[in-house]
């Protein structure tokens, strides 16, 4: 089947799909006219019930915590998939050394860039920790803060060629961090079971205002932040080829 025929069939198919989508979306209430009651009830009760002011984080980690558990394991499995794909054939293929040599032969970053990285990376890391810790009060939370943490480490790597301090072995550390984060969320859920209620029940005492409110929500934020940061850094370092990182220069 030639390319033109395939493109013609695709054109017909996608026109039909677009028509169906437009017809389906036209049946929704007008934009700006949200009618649902569940959202309104959740928004109105997140502060009295959980003492946390960010309704989106309360929904993510408390009211719909089970969905978040599933999403977190999608992340976990994707990271395992990347590791499984890129690690298995590494030592049996010839020419991998050429690949590593090509990347290693690139000139090291300049001194001014390294200085900029050493100044910028701690700021970004502190910003990430802030976003994770205040997730239940202001916009942010574990997911956004975890990616900011990973971005801070990426800045450090790009500007200095080193992804962690000399004594930490970066590869194993971040895999462990990711596993701890993912499992931490499950432990919080099991804590709800131990407290006598259902899985992922919010069993810690709710404060009145400030940083330590929301029961299990700050803990869930921290564990998801660790899982996301560890996962993203593991994936990035695996795509780069971990042999370059294993011997910290």
């Amino acid at each position: 089947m030639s390319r033109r025929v395939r493109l013609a069939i695709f054109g017909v198919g996608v026109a039909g799909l677009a028509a169906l989508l437009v017809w389906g979306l036209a049946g929704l209430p007008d934009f700006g006219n949200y009618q649902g009651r569940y959202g309104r009830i959740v928004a109105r009760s997140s502060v009295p019930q959980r003492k946390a002011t960010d309704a989106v984080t309360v929904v993510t980690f408390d009211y719909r915590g089970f969905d978040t558990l599933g999403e977190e394991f999608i992340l976990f499995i994707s990271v395992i998939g990347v590791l499984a794909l890129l690690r298995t054939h590494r030592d049996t293929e010839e020419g991998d050394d050429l690949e590593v040599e090509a990347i290693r032969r690139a000139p090291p970053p300049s001194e001014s860039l390294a200085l900029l990285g050493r100044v910028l990376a701690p700021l970004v890391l502190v910003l990430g920790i802030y976003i994770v810790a205040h997730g239940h009060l202001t916009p942010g939370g574990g997911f956004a803060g975890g990616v900011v943490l990973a971005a801070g480490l990426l800045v450090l790597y790009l500007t200095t060629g080193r992804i962690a301090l000399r004594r930490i072995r970066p590869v194993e550390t971040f895999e462990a961090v990711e596993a701890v984060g993912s499992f931490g969320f499950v432990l919080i859920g099991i804590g709800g079971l131990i407290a006598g209620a259902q899985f992922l029940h919010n069993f810690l005492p709710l404060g009145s205002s400030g940083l330590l409110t929301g029961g299990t929500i700050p803990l869930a934020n921290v564990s998801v932040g660790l899982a996301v940061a560890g996962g993203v850094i593991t994936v990035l370092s695996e795509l780069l080829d971990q042999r370059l990182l294993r011997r910290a220069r």
Partner: protein
Amino acid sequence: MSFLPYAVAVWLFVVGLWGVVTSRNLIHLVICLTVVQASTYIVLLGIGYRTGAAAPIFADIPTGTPTVDPVVQALTLTDVVVEATVVALLLALAVQAERRFGTLDPKEFGALRG
């Protein structure tokens, strides 16, 4: 005029699919999938929007002011981050395919051999 968000979502879906079908490079194909994902985010957030309402953060507004729907925002938020790692998985598949077949062009792939 208020159909514009959904129209843009349908447009992004179609454009992303067109990019996937006419792609000659596996990595380009994977990025076009992120465009398709963006269309679903716009539909989700468009559903939850209320005219003149505020963001669902009650740190500075009193409880009870009308806000947009927080539930669809929670769905979209987790989705954005998790799909990044799924894209990484797809990119790893592309790297592995290039290793096996020597090319990134989808039309040059032969049958998968174990």
